[in-house]
């Protein structure tokens, strides 16, 4: 889905939030398309939850605007915004049973009794919890409680659903299961969802687009593969997946190779045909799985080094390879053969497809 072709349902314009001297959100602008699954991804304290709270109306922006379906909603009370929200700790009402919990938004909107029943049936079917109407939230497991919270947030047909780390409290297996289920619900309802998480894998699995946040700012917005294959900077490269960052100064350059001095004083030769001048500071990034071992008589420009450590991860082996005096990089290799692979202390040459090495 290309967000630019669809009209945005939610727009953030220079949204800023200060808490005392702390700038929690710093002039964030973002358009979210109708039907999109957008994830705000970032470490804790990066401002992603504050953005969600400003969209929901729990926090008042210091400056900037939140625009929902073309209307500025900054001054609207949370109960007037008609936005669904799923909280990390479920926030189900413990004194009400499941039926009354899901009926709450409908009763607040003065729906007729018959329609309330019908909508709750549909909502419970959507999250596969039919027959649980009379239970109390405390009698349900964490995953079931989260489904109830989801049903409650969707039952009044809000145009936008906010999810604040909704799977954070679940164990790994259940979390993965719920990711897929949420994705199915998103496809089924085609509802716009804004999802907050610090889990990069979760963001990659579920999102149409991801906005990577750091220190109150958006570092990069893009589809999961864009962010993974073309990270805009070191933060994104390091936060999404694993990356080798090679920083240094150009000593000289020929047509297709670059001689490059890195921080530990050693010189490396990298295949690179971009435009650079000697003396220029450069950073490169390359994913561990994009590199492979080549024969010692390989003539193309490549890196050589010594294997310092071998870590067995199951489907792959991770090699820590020293390429300079102290500088090491990680290389991942699929375990194709039982007992295959390389050993510690071995001298190796590593290469990659040209486009895998990215300047950042």
């Amino acid at each position, binding site marked *: 889905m290309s967000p630019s072709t669809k009209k945005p349902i939610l727009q953030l314009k220079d949204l800023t939030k200060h808490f005392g001297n702390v700038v929690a959100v710093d002039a964030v602008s973002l358009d979210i398309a109708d039907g999109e699954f957008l994830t705000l991804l970032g470490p804790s304290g990066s401002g992603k939850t504050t953005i969600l709270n400003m969209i929901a109306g729990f926090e008042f922006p210091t400056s900037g605007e939140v625009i929902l379906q073309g209307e500025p909603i900054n001054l609207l009370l949370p109960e007037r915004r008609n936005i669904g929200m799923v909280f990390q700790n479920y*926030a189900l009402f413990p004194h009400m049973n499941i039926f009354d919990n899901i009926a709450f938004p409908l009763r607040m909107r003065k729906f007729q009794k018959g329609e309330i029943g019908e909508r709750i049936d549909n909502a419970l079917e959507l999250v596969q919890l039919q027959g649980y109407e009379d239970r109390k939230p405390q009698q349900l497991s964490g995953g079931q409680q989260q489904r109830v919270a989801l049903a409650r947030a969707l039952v009044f047909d809000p145009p936008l659903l906010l999810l604040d780390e909704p799977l954070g409290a679940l164990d790994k297996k259940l979390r993965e299961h719920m990711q897929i289920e949420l994705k199915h619900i998103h496809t089924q309802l085609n509802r716009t969802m804004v999802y907050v998480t610090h889990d990069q894998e979760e963001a990659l699995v579920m999102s149409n687009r991801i906005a990577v946040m750091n220190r109150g700012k958006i570092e990069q917005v893009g589809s999961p593969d864009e962010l993974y294959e073309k990270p805009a900077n070191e933060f994104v490269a390091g936060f999404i997946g694993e990356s080798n960052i090679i920083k240094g100064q150009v000593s000289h350059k020929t047509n297709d190779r670059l001689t490059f001095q890195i921080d530990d004083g050693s010189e490396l030769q990298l295949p690179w045909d971009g435009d650079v001048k000697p003396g220029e500071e450069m950073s490169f990034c390359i994913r561990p799985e994009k590199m492979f071992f080549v024969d010692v008589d390989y003539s193309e420009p490549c890196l050589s080094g010594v294997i310092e450590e071998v870590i067995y991860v199951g489907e792959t082996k991770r090699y820590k390879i020293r390429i300079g005096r102290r500088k090491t990089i990680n290389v991942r290799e699929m375990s194709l053969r039982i007992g295959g692979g390389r050993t510690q202390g071995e001298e190796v040459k590593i290469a990659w497809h040209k486009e895998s090495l990215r300047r950042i």
Partner: protein
Amino acid sequence: MRNQKRMEYGKILIGIFAGTVFVFLVVPTILSVPMSFSDTNYLVFPPKGLTLKWHHKFFTDQKWITPTLFSLKLASITTAVSLIIGTMGSLAMVRGILPGKRILHLFFLSPMMTPLIVTAFAVYGLFAKLHLIGTLPGLVLAHTVICVPYVILVVTANLYRFDLSMELAARNLGASAFKTFMHVTLPIIKPGIIAAGIFCFIESLDELVLVLFLMGTTKMTLPLRMFSNIQFRINPTVAAASTVFIVAAIGTIIALSFITKAEKPRKVEE
């Protein structure tokens, strides 16, 4: 080996200590029950004979009924007023943006730490000027002063434990601030409010010091009636009154344990 033996001695000592405390605290209270059945015109233990006439007297003699009803009225109004003021005060102190919240909190609790006789003395002077001595509103006011701290203590504890995201969820789902309070906050802190209400009721029902100062001569509360009964002619009606008190207190404790049990359904494992 030696440590184990020592621990066992320790256990025995604690048992003896607890037993002694139990005997001195509880036994005199419970003794009033058999004494109320004594067929004598004075209090005696062990009771002589068996009669219900003192209980009958308590429930039929206007000398006892009027003060009892007055005490119940006083305790009910005091409880209602204390709960409203205490709950609102607790909300202000937990949720409100107030300068010096901690000092305010301590101030609200201070009547609990002030000796009752001091409060009584202070209130007496003021009430004499305001012509509140011997009036129901005056007593309600005085009892509210000593009951509000109980409410504040219990309800603030409840509010501090309250998960705020539940209120945010209610607002997000379309409830105004007032509806959120009525439908979400209040029902969730209700057990605390009920417990505080029972404290208030009992506190007001058996309070004597303030009543001695502020009662004047026209009306009587039940504790005051019991007190003068003991002073002038000790007959077992006072024991019968105590028995009624004990039964009522045990009843409320049982009711309270049922309420708290009902609010905490069994947690289910994942």
